[in-house]
Each structure stands twice: as C-alpha cells, then as structure tokens.
C-alpha cells in the first residue's frame, strides 16, 4: 500500500510480462489502457486493473 509517482510515458504494467498483484487508484493525472486492438483513457478516481485476474498465494505443506 502506498503512493507511486509516474513520469509521462512511464509504463505502470506491461501486458504479458508483469504479474497482477496490485490494484491502483489514480489520484492525479491520466493513464492509457491498451492492447493490440483497442485503447481507453482513465482519469482521477479510476481503478487500474479491474479487468485483470489477480494471482493468489497458496501455502502447500509437503
């Protein structure tokens, strides 16, 4: 939990590479959400990563 500052053009998460483990709320600025075919913009008050599937931690005893 914490605040993260991003510069213009900085990638917060990259499709196919980063693992989903956090949910973000935009408190300042705008973020472009895109894949190969479509894109949209999100502003202040938007959740980042709602459409993603989070990873789960599981403890196994062997």
């Amino acid at each position, binding site marked *: 939990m914490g605040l993260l500052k991003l510069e213009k053009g900085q990638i917060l998460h990259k499709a196919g590479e980063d693992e989903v483990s956090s949910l*973000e709320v935009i408190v300042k600025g*705008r973020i472009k959400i895109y894949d190969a075919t479509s894109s949209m913009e999100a502003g202040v008050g938007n*959740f980042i990563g709602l459409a993603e599937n989070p990873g789960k931690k599981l403890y196994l005893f062997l």
Partner: protein
Amino acid sequence: MSEISLVWQKIQAKNYIYSYEAIEETSVYFYPYESLDDIPLVVKGNPKIAPILASQTAESAAVVAAIYEKEFDDANREYEQIMADYADYPSLCIKVGEAPKMFPELDEIIPPEKSPNVPDWSLEFVNSLKEHDAEAKKGFYPISVEIAAGMVMTTFTIIRQISNEVQALGAYKKILKRKAGAFISTMKMIRAKLSDMEKAETGDTGNVTIVNALSTILSYSDVTSEISAKFEDEINRFKSFDNRYDSSDEARALRRSISTSFYDVYTAAFLKSVTDSDIPIELRMFFMFGFVDEDLAGEKNTEILYNMAKAYVPDPEGNVLTMYEWLLKIYNLEADPSKNEFDQDWPAYLRDQKMNGNINDAQLEAMMNHQKSRLDFEIKNLFALGNRMTFGRVSSFVPVFDQQNVLRPLDMAYLTSPKVNGYFDMIRSIDYSVFCRQALYTNPEAGITQLFYSEDITPYMILLPNVGSRASLWQEIDGKNRRTKARMLISIFNTENTEECMIRLFGEFRWEMCKTEQGVHWNDVTDPSLTSMYCDYLQFFKKNSALSSEVKEKLRTDLKKFSNNYKNVFIADYLAYIKYEANSSPRLNKVAREILFTFCPFSRELREKIGDNPQYTELINHYNARIGNQAKPITNLVNKLRKEEIEVPEVVIKQLEHLQK
C-alpha cells in the same frame, strides 16, 4: 518424507492482459490485489472518495461497453465484406481474365455473435448510469459506503464480462485474418487490376493504386504463416512507434527483428519472381526500394516510387544494377557471389566449411553451382551488410522504406543508370586511368612477344534498396582474376552530395586496386606505387625537407582526424585533387600532388589546361617524357607492322590511344 517443509507457491498467477502507460505526470495509490474481495475493501477503506470511485467505475464500464460495440461492429463488417467479396470473386476473375482459385478455409468462417454473457440490459444499465452520473453522484452513491462498494462491484462485474468478450472478438478477428488472409490479398490484386483496366479505358494514368502492399508482398512471397504474421506484426508495431529510431532497447530490438524477417521475405519473393514474367508493381517496388507499406512510405512517396518502378529502364551496358538485378545475376550463375565479411569468396567459404567438417566433398561440389545456396550467401553477405553500410547510420538501420528517412527529395536523390554512368564519365575525364588494369598481350604471328597494355574495366555499381548516405567498395576484383569488374555499392536514394560520395569511392578503389596489384609490396618503397609512395610520405613527413612546418602541422592534424588511417588521408586528398586541383585551385602540398599526379595523372585536356601552372609544369614534363618512352616502341611496332602489311592488332592501337589520352 520425514520433515515437513513449508513451500510457498503462487497459483493462478496471471499476467496483465492490458498495458498501462502514464500519458502525463501521474500518481496512483496502490493496494495489494490477491482476490476480488480486495476491491470492496479498498472502497470501504476510503469512505470519503467512495462515491467518486463508484462514479468513475460506472463511467469506465460505459467506455468499455462502447469499445465492445465498436469491436463487434468492426468484426461483423469485416466478415460481411469478405463474404460479399467471396460471392463476387468468380465474376471478377472473369472480368480481369484470371483463373479463380479455391479458398476452402473461407467456408470454415462463421459470423461473429454477441455473447449471452453480455446481455443488452447490462449495456443499457451502464450507459444509463453514465447518463445520470451527476444525480447518482449527488444523491445515490453518497448514501452509504456499502452502496458505493456495491455499485463498484456491480459495474466491475460488467466490466470484466465485457472485457472478456472484447478479448474474444480480438481473437476472432485474428482468426478471420489468418483464414481469409490469402483471399483478401487476392481480392486486392484483382481490385488493383480492375482499377488499372478502368484507367486504361478512360485514359487516366494519374492516380496510383497501391493498397495494402504488405499483404500483397507477403501473399506473393509464399513465406510460412509464422514469418508472414511476424513481419506484418513488426511493421505494424514499427509504424505505431512515434520514436521508431529511438536508442531504447525495445526500438533497437524491433529494428533488428525487422531486418531478419525482411531478408526472409525478400529471398522467398525473389525465388518466386524468377519464374514470373508479370511481377506485380508492389513487388517491383519492394525489390528496388525496400518498399513494404504505403503508410510507412507516405502517400506522396508511394506515388513517386510507383512511377519510378514503372518507368525503370535497366542499364544497357549492364554496369549499373539494382539489387534485384544483381541477385538475378548471381542466381543465374552469370556472376560469382561476392566476398563475405571475412574476405572469403564463395569457393573459399565452401572450402572453409569443408575444413570445419560442416560439409563433405560431395556437398561442396553440389553447392558450388547450386543457385539457392549462392543466392543465400549473397543475400546474407553483400546485401544484408551492404544495405546497412550504405544506409549510413548503422545503429538506426531498417531495411524497409520509411518516409522518416527521406531527407532529400526522392527525385533528386534517385540514382539511375544514366546518372551513375555520368559519374563514371566524369571521373574518366579527369583521372582517365582510374579503372585501368595492366594486362599482357602476346601475338607471335605478328612478332609481338610481350606487350603490356591497359584495359579499362568499368566496375559494377549495385544500387541498394535504401535511402542512405554512403557509398562503399565491396571488392576490387572477383577472386584472383585481376581483369574482373569491381563491385561498388551505393544507396538507390543518396541523400548526401553524390558527386563527392562517388569521388571518395573511386579514390578508395584506386587505393585498394593498387594494394591488390602490388600484393605484399603494397607499402614497399623500393617498388614505387601509389600506396607505397603515399605510405612513405605519411610515415616520414616530419623529416621531409620539401614540406614547410605549416604543412607538417596540417598533416599531423589530418592523421589525427583520420585515426592514422593512411587510406582515409589519401581519399581526402584524392577528393581535393579531383574536385579542386583539377579546376586550377591548389589544395594539396607539393609531395602529395607529385604522388597523385604520377599515379593518377590528369587527362590530356586537363594537362593542357593547367600546363602553364608552375606547380604542374615540371610534373607534366616528367609525365610526357615517361609516356613518350612507353609510346615510342609501340609506335615503332605499328609502323613496322604497317610496312610489312600485317594487320595491326586492335589491342596495340588501343594502347597507343590510351597513352595519348
């Protein structure tokens, strides 16, 4: 297992489906996200902004719904277009006079369907929420944090369902493209033909019909679907990059990757074209200029390239060749493949492969004249390396035609065979013996036991398909035969001062040819030659009493500037010699001028013009005496043969004429 150990594993760990990029300076507050239960916790943990979170999530849901509708409409339109074209295809084939092909994969295509997972009411719901957002934000979301959290979760569920369907539509479009790719390209070709036929009927030749050239090229080349998809994806990514010549790792990797795929496609398309008498114009543009995409090239440039490719006339003398023509020569065994980066020619490379155990004797024999192996070797070496070299900026090289590289109007930068032959004539009118090689003539019947004569061998000038700034000498002779043509490379669109580029290139040729002729004695001053005298002059200039201290200082600076590379110092001096000294504008010091005039003498016309110049008077006198001594026995020989009424061999007459040049 006796000991119980705790092992932590992540399951269901998924990667992001979308990329997220800040489009301005942005701050985000991040929370752990392990399950969906974390979402309401975030809302409840921020009661003050909970209504805003609910409102923004509803708005996002409406945006995602609009994207879904658009994607569905696009997919549907594409499908209907393909099916309509498929129905028209047989009659269009008859119209353009082509035999219809079978496309069984089109029968497998089904129309896109709206998923029951996204019912209409959910779309209407999120659209209505957006419409009444102001009222909801004022009087509904703020009622309680539980309502806000509930709204976030409701709209979130809709977002997720729609997002899954958008992904599915994306996958549908990819399959559609894969299955109908060949048919779409065929239809484009048919449409272009139809358009050309209509123009021919109406007499209109103005507009250019280049549409979706990349598909045409890929379809024509018959490369595997993997290579085709990879190249198409790379070009699309390259196009979408604003800063495609960036030095970032991503941009570099993409440029490198394009280079690899480009030659795969080029080779495949080339192999198909050798048996095709009617190569499509897109392919001719691809072969000549590296053109692959009309958007990447720009509309205006595409039109120019189209006209250039259409109006192209090969060099009647066969000295100036496009890369395609050159590869054709290699493929048809009319010329041997060029040397590779380790200075090995084709036979030497094969011998090396055999010594390393990569091939055996039988394979060596089979490969020596194997067309495809020779072509691959040439593409991998001369084409791939030469293309990068002539482009000028090695780290930002891409083999495809890009309008961002057009730094000079194309019609001015375009090198045609008359232009290049003009440069050959220009250099010969100044340095008349630049392409001459010494050869031995014997004719015992005419009583000529030994006559050394000069043979003028015009080099090959191969035009590389790029917009570049450099010219390069690939090799001065072919194999060991000194009477073979040199191979020079230059971009088909030269953005620099082409005259200077050419003079430098000819200077380099002078140097390298001398080295080849002299062999190990190339820098042996006891065997005077251009290279040996120049090396001696540059090595011992400090002790040379003929040079003033200012000249010595300048030489010191020049050597530093050219990193002590004698060849490059010579090339700079050669440029000054041809460009300025020949126009009576002295730029060289006395020693350099003497060496250059001795080994690269000016033509007769120029000698007469500058004869009064005291800097040249003595040099010209020496030259005349030397040439007189060489011409005298030949004149005597001619007189003797004429007296005896024996026909004077052409070689003898030509040598006499050469000495009088």
